[in-house]
Each structure stands twice: as structure tokens, then as C-alpha cells.
């Protein structure tokens, strides 16, 4: 990468480093893994920088970050052989119609736990929408699905969150 190209790369990606790390941290739920994912994502991004068309640096970078993060998750899954498959694969895109009741718990710990318990595909849309403020269209570009899928995942994510935050979780205190 020549210095000019490198400068262009840094200008497109470095302002979004916090967003990249935030997404990686939420997806991996691990400090070290999040740093590794972001570093790997920056390397990949640099390699494919010529496919970047110059606008929406954040969307472009985040899409690389989440791909690396999902690779990492898949590796973890293979290693732990956990019953992860079912929750991992997104079941259908039928639009659900959640009823919204008032939530009771909104302290940091309950909220963090509730979001971490979402499956990765639901977790990422919640993070991208609520923390990064991305529009549906931007989220669709980041995770490479149609907008309808973004909407249904957001809807299911919020539904599950409000179920978790409205009543105490079953078997609280155990894992």
C-alpha cells in the first residue's frame, strides 16, 4: 500500500474504529477476541480496499468486522460443539407482531446480559440500530440481507429483550 493509498485507507476507516470494536466486542463477548477480530478486519479491509468506492466507510468497515466475527464464532462453535446451531441459524423471516409491555429492569447489568443472550444475528442488529444508530438500509448493507430481514430480526430481538427485561429470568443465579 503506497503512502497515499494508506492515508486514504486510514481516513476511511480510523474514524470508525470505536464502532468496529464495539460491534466485535458485542458479537464475541470477549475483550481479547474483540481486539483480534478488529485487527484481522483491518488487515482484510486493507487488502480489499480497492473494492471500496469511497462513501460509507463505516458501513463497509462494519461489514468486514462482522464477517470476521462470525468466522470467529463459527470456530468457537466447532471447538465447543455446543448446542449452538439452533439458536445460531435464523429461523425464517416471517414478521412477528410483538406486543410491547412496560419493561421493569433497565439497569446496566440486566440489559447487558439480556442483549448478550440474544443469538448473534439478532444481537448485531440491536447493536447496530440502538448503539450505532444505523438506518435499516445501512444495516442491510452491513449484514448483507434484504431490508425485510433486518426489520424482522430487529422485531424479534426487541421482543426477546422485552421478555427478558419484563420478568425475572427463569433460574436466575445459575447459568
Amino acid at each position, binding site marked *: 500500500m503506497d503512502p497515499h*493509498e494508506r492515508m486514504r*485507507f*486510514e481516513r476511511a476507516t*480510523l*474514524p470508525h*474504529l*470505536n464502532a*468496529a*470494536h464495539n460491534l466485535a*466486542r*458485542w458479537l464475541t463477548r470477549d475483550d481479547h477476541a474483540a*481486539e483480534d477480530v*478488529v*485487527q484481522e478486519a*483491518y*488487515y482484510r*479491509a*486493507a*487488502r*480489499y*480496499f*480497492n*473494492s471500496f468506492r469511497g*462513501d460509507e466507510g*463505516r458501513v463497509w468497515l462494519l*461489514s468486514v468486522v462482522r464477517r470476521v466475527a462470525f468466522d470467529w464464532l463459527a470456530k468457537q462453535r466447532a471447538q465447543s460443539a455446543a448446542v449452538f446451531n439452533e439458536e445460531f441459524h435464523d429461523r425464517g423471516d416471517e*414478521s412477528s*407482531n410483538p*406486543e*410491547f*409491555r*412496560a*419493561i421493569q429492569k*433497565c*439497569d*446496566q447489568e*440486566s*440489559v*447487558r446480559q439480556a442483549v448478550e443472550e440474544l443469538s448473534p444475528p439478532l444481537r448485531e442488529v440491536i447493536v447496530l*440500530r*440502538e*448503539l*450505532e*444508530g*444505523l*438506518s*435499516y*438500509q445501512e444495516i*442491510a*448493507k452491513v449484514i*448483507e*440481507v434484504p*431490508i*425485510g430481514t433486518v*426489520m424482522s430480526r430487529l*422485531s424479534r430481538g*426487541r421482543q426477546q*429483550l*422485552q421478555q427478558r*427485561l419484563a420478568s425475572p429470568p427463569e433460574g436466575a443465579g445459575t447459568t
Partner: protein
Amino acid sequence: MNCRDFQQLLQPYSDGELDLVRQLEMEEHLAGCLDCEEQERNLRSMRTGLAAAMPYYPAPDSLRAKLQLAPPPSPTVTRRRWRPSGQQLSIAAGIMLVVGAAATIGMLVPRSGTGADDRFAERVVAGHVRSLQAEHLMDVPSSDRHTVKPWFRGKIDFSPQVPDLAQQGYPLTGGRLDYLTDRPVAALVYHRRLHAINVFTWPAADKTATPARASDRQGFHLRHWQRFGMTYWTVSDLNDQELDEFVRLFQEQTAE
């Protein structure tokens, strides 16, 4: 449309993703339907609770340093001879699918501005990015508006309004002189958690008041309005909801 139809649209409504016609229909319905109104309220309070309580994980300095010091490996293909790989082609196809879906769903709010606004938006974002990159966010770092406001005296030919929004969770952190066009403008810096909010302001060409217009650029959110003869541009990577709240509070506290 019945309540069920409206409830299907509650989330896009709450996310600001409905087109104007549907949004007005929704507002009209919510004004007359207790049930839907309550759900809208619950959804809103959940989202506010989430946004406030979800931890944000900024990149640690060590990671930032690593990325800036260690240059990424050189590209394996040269720029001129670049051919898209299968994966990249499928990404491109995916993006085209998305664009197609957006057109058919037709619920998206158009966010592009007019030509002149567009050029300003570009400079505003460039100013914001510059301020973050060069670590030159503030010339006068202070959370006291009685320090920030007089600092501009003698440096610019107008006196900017500097509202105090610390109580509402948007503390003032300083001010700086910036050049967006050929004239110096006042840049006020506020923060929400770790997000910097730049407010650029300078005297407008006329006295017309315009409501805040939203636009997005390079992943940043912008709001532009005019009030009491002053032009305002706000830019941040903060989420839309909170940026709207910030603008509302800012406007409430700027009087003639």
C-alpha cells in the same frame, strides 16, 4: 388500516423509517387509540432504557496504537489489474438485491439533500472528522458556557449561543474556531457518552427559520436548521434518536 396493521409499523415508526404519509397516518392513529398509544410508549421507553444502559465498548488505546503503527500488508493484487473475486461479486449482488428490496418496500425515508446543502454537509462531515483525527477537537476546553462563549469574542464577528445541556446528559466540552467555507465559524463541542457532537454555527443569509433536516453521510448523522438568523449544522456518530433529542434541547435553549 386496523390496529394490527398499525402495530406492524410501530417499530419502523419508532426507528424513523416510515415515509411521511405513513408517519402522519400513524400519528393520527396513535392520537385516537389508547391501546396502540400505550404500546408505542412502552416500545419507546424500552428503547430509551436500552440506549442508556447498553455498554458501549470503544477501541482501547493499545489497539488504536497497534493499527496506526503496524502498516497493514500491501495489497496482493495491484489496483489496475484488480478483478473481483467470487466473494466480492456475491457481495455486489447482495447490495443490488438490497437496493431492489428497498425500492419495492418503498418505506424508506429519502435522506439526500439538495445540491447546496449537500456540499455543506460534505464540509461539515470533513470538519467533524478533521476535529476528531487531528486531536484538535477544542481550542477552549471547558464545560462552562461562560468561558466558551466569551472566548469567541474578537475571533469571529458574531456571538454564538452556547446552551448548557449537561443536566440533560449532553455536557458541553468546549469550543473551537473552524473554517467550513471561506468564513470562520464557531464550532461547539458536546458529548454524549463517548460520542462527540460538533455544532457548527454562523450567521445565516436571511431570517427565515427552517426545521431541522436530517441527512446521513459517510456513516455520520447530520442535522441542519436555521433559527433567529443563525445557521446550525450538527454532526455526530451518535444514534439518530439521541441526536434528535439533542437538537430539540439545543433549540429549546437558543432564544433570539
